[in-house]
């Protein structure tokens, strides 16, 4: 049972940890100062949310947030590959599309988890949703604005959607031990959450003439296994960078 609980919490926490790190790579590079500050703040929130999920496990006598965040082997992470993707050419259209798809998924997951029968998770979901409201507003406002802007903006969003879509789809890859979790009333099945996610984003995208492609089985199966520890080729550099400081002086208090 504890493995199931750890898997559920780590899938949520590790997604936020990596997403926070990838978003933070934009610090100092945002398109304008105001947006730089807003996006950096969102990045900081995500990292904080990861810590809060780890803390639930710490309170059960498992590892500390720092141990979970910075002292696990790569195969022990349970994040989806979407959050591991680097920022490639630093196209802000890509950053915004990933942010939009990811925070829509967070909306759906947290709305469901606030009714989780695992009380510490339900309480945390309720708390995080208040902060996530801003993330969701920020993401939607940008997609709405850029989607109706210039042809270049629309093309960039379209390409970003095309590229990130299979990865975003796999945010809802079934978790190991999922049957147990569902049975215990901790979470609805991932497939059900994916349906709700599609219902949430489809109208917003359609309004700006963006239509998600249908992911092929081949694409999806090449991305399978993230929740059991299969890391993408991009994880290694990301991992080296976010563990660099803590690895420089093991055991130090920061």
């Amino acid at each position, binding site marked *: 049972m504890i493995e199931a609980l750890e898997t559920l919490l780590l899938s949520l926490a590790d997604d936020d940890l990596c997403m926070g790190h990838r978003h933070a*790579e934009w610090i*100092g*590079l945002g398109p*304008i*100062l*105001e*947006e730089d*500050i*807003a996006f950096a*703040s969102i990045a900081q929130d995500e990292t904080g949310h990861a810590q809060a999920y780890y803390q639930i496990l710490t309170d059960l006598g498992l590892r500390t947030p720092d141990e979970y965040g910075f002292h696990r082997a790569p195969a022990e992470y349970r994040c989806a590959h979407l959050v591991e993707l680097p*920022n490639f050419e*630093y196209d802000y259209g890509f950053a915004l599309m990933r942010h939009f798809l990811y925070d829509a998924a967070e909306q759906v997951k947290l709305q469901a988890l606030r009714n989780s029968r695992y009380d510490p998770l339900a309480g945390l979901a309720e708390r995080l949703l208040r902060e996530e409201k*801003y993330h969701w*507003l*920020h993401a939607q*406002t*940008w997609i*709405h*604005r850029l989607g109706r*802007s*210039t042809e270049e903006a629309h093309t960039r969003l379209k390409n970003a959607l095309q590229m990130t879509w299979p990865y975003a789809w796999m945010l809802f890859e079934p978790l190991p031990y999922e049957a147990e979790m569902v049975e215990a009333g901790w979470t609805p099945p991932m497939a059900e959450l994916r349906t709700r996610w599609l219902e949430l984003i489809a109208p917003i995208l359609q309004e700006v003439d963006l239509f998600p492609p249908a992911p092929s089985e081949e694409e999806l199966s090449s991305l399978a296994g993230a929740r059991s520890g299969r890391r993408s080729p991009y994880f290694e*550099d990301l991992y080296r*960078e976010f563990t660099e400081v803590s690895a420089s002086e093991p055991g130090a208090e920061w």
Partner: protein
Amino acid sequence: MPSLDPRITRAEPELWSLPERPLHPLEHWPTYEVFVLRTRGSHAQHVGSLHAPDPDMALVLAKEQYARRSQCVAVWVVPTEAIRWTPTEDEDLFQPATDKSYREPQGYLHTRERLEKYRDRLKPLPS
């Protein structure tokens, strides 16, 4: 391995010394003045300004610029160009020519004392 830091990998020093050119409107957004309400029902306080392409984006950006550190229950944005002001080099409008201290709250400080002093001289109202 090349640096992962995009501030290094993306730096294009040759672009820094390009001659000035006129900006496209999308490169030069208008500014909005930002007001915050610290508590429900309090007055909106002006806290600064920001760039945004439209009022919706201005609200989204204002929240993180001006309401992330101190308590705040609402944010307002107003296009800077909607504001009209008196000429700052001309302060005559605000300079009274005669003593108008009676308009200030201090003018009412001793009302009670004066009232007491003259009370016995008041004639009763005709019944």
